[in-house]
């Protein structure tokens, strides 16, 4: 493989450039995936049947904690990529590890939130509203879970193989994914929670 040294490592080879563009297009598809969930959510938002409405079950504290955790993790992975571009392998791995820990904490709070919903009678099968609420949050949560494993694998590879065009490329693409999950969360935070509690 030819390597172009004038560009950051993750853009170094032709295949790397393909991977990055391909991943951006995948993110375009993800935009539509979440848009469809949002469209469904907004349609069913007030169709609560005999179950509770959003305002009755949402709690600001865990939601705010989740938001701060995810925003910070988006920041730390940004720092990780910055460190990677400076060639600082250890700093980069540390930032990635911190990101994953923050993601893990986010997931923990989300699991707490879910058990809380079930507890107050807003389980998956209660109404159209609860069904789509938990499906939408669950889809985002599943993405975060996949991200945790993926990120872990990448840290392992960087540790073992060092910063090569290949591992740098994977790390950069993972950072795109993670930032994207943060963007999705911003919309969930604004238009599911805050709109529901307004």
């Amino acid at each position, binding site marked *: 493989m030819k390597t172009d040294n004038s560009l950051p490592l993750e853009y170094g080879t032709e295949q790397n450039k393909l991977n990055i563009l391909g991943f951006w297009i995948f993110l375009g598809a993800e935009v539509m995936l979440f848009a469809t969930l949002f469209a469904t959510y907004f349609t069913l938002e*007030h169709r609560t049947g005999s179950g509770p409405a959003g305002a009755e079950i949402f709690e600001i504290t865990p939601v705010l904690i989740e938001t701060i955790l995810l925003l910070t993790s988006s920041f730390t992975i940004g720092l990780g990529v910055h460190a990677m571009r400076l060639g600082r392998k250890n700093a980069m791995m540390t930032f990635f590890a911190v990101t994953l820990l923050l993601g893990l904490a986010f997931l923990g709070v989300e699991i707490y939130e879910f058990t809380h919903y079930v507890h107050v009678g807003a389980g998956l099968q209660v109404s159209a509203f609860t069904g789509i609420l938990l499906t939408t949050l669950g889809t985002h949560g599943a993405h975060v879970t996949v991200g945790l494993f993926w990120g872990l694998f990448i840290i392992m590879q960087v540790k073992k193989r060092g910063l090569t065009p290949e591992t740098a490329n994977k790390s950069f693409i993972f950072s795109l994914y993670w930032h994207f999950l943060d963007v999705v969360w911003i919309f969930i935070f604004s238009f599911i929670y805050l709109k529901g509690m307004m």
Partner: protein
Amino acid sequence: MKRKLTLLSLVIGILAVLAGCEPVMVLDPKGPQAETISNVIWISIATMAIVVIAVFALLVYVIVKYRASKQDEDYEPPHIEGNPIVESIIVGIPIIIIIFLSIVTVRSTYEVEATPKGYEDQKPLVVYASSSDWKWHFSYPEENIETVNYLYIPTDRALEFRLYSYGPITSFWIPQLGGQKYAMSDMITTLHLAADVPGEYMGRNANFSGKGFAENIFHVEAMPADEFDKWVEEVRATAEPLTEDKFAELLEPGHLGQMTFSGTHLEFLPPPEGHNHGTKHSHEGEHDTDDAHGDVDTDHSAHK
């Protein structure tokens, strides 16, 4: 050779019309709404015929004139990128056609979604038409009678059908009186029709709803107002009352013949009035309709 095909289509077309011997239902309207739609269809056929003829003529012209067998051995077709004038014509004419058809569509769509023209001043006859697997229940709230699988209507009077379903989505359709509309379980849809001519018409569920779908037909009879009133009187006097148990029995999946009852199921099993059945939130005014379950809310159409 493409002419063969054109000719064939024409022949089939003529055959088809002859085979029918009478005009096809949709183009043989017996009420104002069906008439409006039938006119729209004829306008669209005429307009589209221009397009079809233009394309066919051009096609025949080019394949006859420019086939290789008619050309010199050494004829070298020219390289032409395109021509702005020609291209604006092939964009411009379709745009004009589409604008024309859009105007026709928008006007007629608003027309068929409102009380039929010429009937605006009278009070429409309200009929609740509900479907269950695989039959139709017609409730006449003001007359306080109910029928199964057949529908009697007065001519020269606006009809307002309130449609809903006890099962899958169905579509209420009487081709000679007007277009169809879905009947669904969680809301009521409204269809405005009227019959100008007394007679018997075919009505059916047009939307696939399972095993018994093909036979999900009902019989429609339009008659002058006095005959209709007489029929109502007769039903009230002679038909057995519709009880809750009886209605539950009727809802069982299967096919039934024509049946007649006095009283309607609306009293004990209110229809899903209001737009967001099963919700708690109250947006401007929808709440009162939600609460009006017990009674029949004849002003409901005002919400549309």
